[in-house]
């Protein structure tokens, strides 16, 4: 396996270098993710430059009226006085908002990591002054990107941290998904598996019409976590709300999918024949592989949290995956990376944020890219419109992805239009 650094897998493909940020880089971001909480206003506290990206994103994504800023300066920071400014800003904000929010997310920047701000201290003041308001703290702190609790993970904790332990018991037969910002496709077999397991009412935060609806997530019988991003939030909910959780990571490996469903079904002691779904996924892969007829494929981590798992499935089924773009490899995906390095040593693994990426970028190539950033960097003529595994899960997810890949090669893709449509703001 070749890599951007020319180093073998064992000595580490993934290097920390000066980071390059391509025009296709980005995703949901902290502000957009936290906007999933209905009737929640965000107060962003930071020096003004730190607010630029979120402000532009909110404008593009249509959340401008739910986002406010408290800009702080050097004097506020070094004196520690800005902790006092926050409750004052909340008072003023609540006076001015036409519709009083049910919840407030105070989003702080890397500064707070450096200053060790005691958030609980100012939250206590705000809660006392505004007892009806649910208030929490979110972190827009890229300083933690390489740590164990990066911003995308932390914001999930902050969002679900707004839930309170309910007085009423859990609602039987209910489950909620944590961590995936877009709900899974309801045509997926996972919903049948869940029904068979006794879960007839399966919810997602995006389906909550108002804060009361969101609040009811505190009464679920089970939380399902299809992406690593939601794991800590679900663990918090186990402790704070007493809701059991099941980690069911998205996968493109048939055996792993089967094992995941097995665990879900074992909760109820029931079984289910998933053969038809598996065969359909296989048929879709075969059909698309035939359709592509050896067209090189680029798999990119902006499309899936499991790029190596997906690449392996494609390679095993006759696709010619020539490049995988991934800044790092999560532990769950490591065995798939190792498998690829052993069986397909010519498949390149490139880091999209590597400083050489803009130099190595191809303006145009006759390839199909699965993922936006890989599309930009490889210049792929065709792009499958997939981001963050959205809507994809299980055998149905494999079938759907294969169909999207087949559709993508029907005509050259306008990548800029795809990026705009997805709401990416650099």
């Amino acid at each position, binding site marked *: 396996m070749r890599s951007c650094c020319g180093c073998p897998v064992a000595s580490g493909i993934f290097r920390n270098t000066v980071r390059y940020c391509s025009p296709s880089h980005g995703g949901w971001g902290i502000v957009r993710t936290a906007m999933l909480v209905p009737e929640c206003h965000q107060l962003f506290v930071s020096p003004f430059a730190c607010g630029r990206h979120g402000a532009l994103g909110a404008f593009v994504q249509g959340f401008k009226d739910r986002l406010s800023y408290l800009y702080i300066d050097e004097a506020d920071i070094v004196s*520690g006085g800005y902790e006092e400014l926050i409750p004052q800003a909340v008072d003023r904000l609540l006076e001015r908002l036409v519709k009083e929010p049910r919840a407030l997310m105070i989003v702080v920047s890397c500064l707070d*990591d*450096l*200053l*060790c*701000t*005691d958030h*609980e*201290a100012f939250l*206590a003041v705000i809660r006392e002054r505004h007892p009806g308001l649910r208030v929490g703290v979110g972190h827009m702190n890229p300083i933690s990107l*390489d740590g*164990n*609790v990066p911003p995308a993970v932390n914001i999930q904790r902050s969002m679900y941290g707004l839930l309170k332990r309910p007085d009423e018991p859990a609602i039987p037969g209910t489950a909620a998904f944590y961590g995936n910002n877009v709900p899974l496709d309801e045509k997926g077999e996972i919903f049948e598996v869940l029904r068979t397991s006794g879960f007839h009412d399966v919810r997602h935060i995006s389906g909550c019409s108002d804060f009361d609806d969101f609040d009811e997530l505190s009464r679920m019988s089970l939380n399902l976590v299809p992406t690593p991003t939601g794991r800590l939030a679900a663990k918090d909910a186990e402790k704070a709300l007493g809701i059991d959780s099941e980690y069911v990571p998205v996968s493109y490996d048939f055996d792993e999918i089967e094992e995941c469903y097995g665990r879900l079904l074992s909760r109820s002691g029931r079984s289910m024949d998933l053969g038809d779904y598996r065969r359909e996924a296989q048929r879709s892969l075969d059909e698309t592989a035939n359709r592509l007829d050896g067209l090189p494929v680029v798999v990119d981590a902006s499309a899936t949290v499991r790029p190596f798992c997906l690449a392996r499935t494609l390679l095993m089924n006759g696709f010619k995956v020539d490049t995988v773009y991934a800044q790092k490899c999560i532990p769950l995906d490591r065995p798939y990376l190792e498998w690829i390095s052993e069986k397909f040593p010519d498949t390149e693994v490139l880091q999209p944020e590597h400083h050489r990426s803009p130099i190595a970028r191809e303006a145009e190539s006759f390839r199909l890219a699965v993922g936006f950033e890989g599309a930009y960097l490889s210049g792929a003529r065709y792009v499958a419109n997939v981001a963050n595994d959205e809507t994809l899960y299980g055998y149905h997810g494999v079938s759907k992805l294969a169909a999207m890949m087949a559709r993508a090669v029907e005509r050259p893709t306008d990548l800029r239009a795809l990026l705009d449509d997805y709401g990416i703001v650099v």
Partner: protein
Amino acid sequence: MRKIAIYGKGGIGKSTTTSNLSAALSSMGYRVMQIGCDPKSDSTTGLNGGRDVPTVLDALRNNPEGVTLEDIVVQGAGGVLCVEAGGPTPGIGCAGRGIITAFEKLEELDAYEIYRPDIVLYDVLGDVVCGGFAMPIRGGYARDVFIVTSGEKMALFAANNIATALSNFKSRGYARLSGLILNSRNIEKEVEMVEDLAGRIGTSVVEVLSRSPVVQRAEDGNGTVVGLFPDSPMAKEYVSLAEKVLERSVDDA
């Protein structure tokens, strides 16, 4: 679990007192963890035969993603679990942030749940000058603070500052001031001066530690008084201090 922070002016003898306190508590059968929160990283050398304990920040520098508890927790004399937060390169970086990072790493690695110490002692450099140095007294960390002081003006001044910080943070549920430890310098009217300060800040003197040459001899021997000279009067003073610290601290277990 008792979580206790030892504060005081730099050079007043916090690390010596804390290490002897750890050794005394350990000799009483308690499982003790001592966490040095000083960029000099010398809090626990007396419990480790004069050897440096690898610091959390150094471990993070060397292996950012793969730090394990075995890398940063060293079992010292009497089984005391020794941790040094460490600090930045002198002259650059931020020592306060270093403490925060070290604490976060210990939590992330479940240090307290895995080692389950009966007593955690935080040995904290100097004054509560910023958020990082206040970290040990925040919710979830130390519940009780003892301040080491002598009768010297600067030591009393620092003790007063620390007490003021604790008082300011009272409404936040931070640690409480549980007493002063007088580490004698044998200056005139020393006990009276320290007792006077104690009265003004609403606390009392827990123990008066004598100025004894055996302390220096123990340091020269790369050990603690309690470990090397257990029958000395000074060792008995440390044991007495340990008993009083136990009486005055909260067991959150």
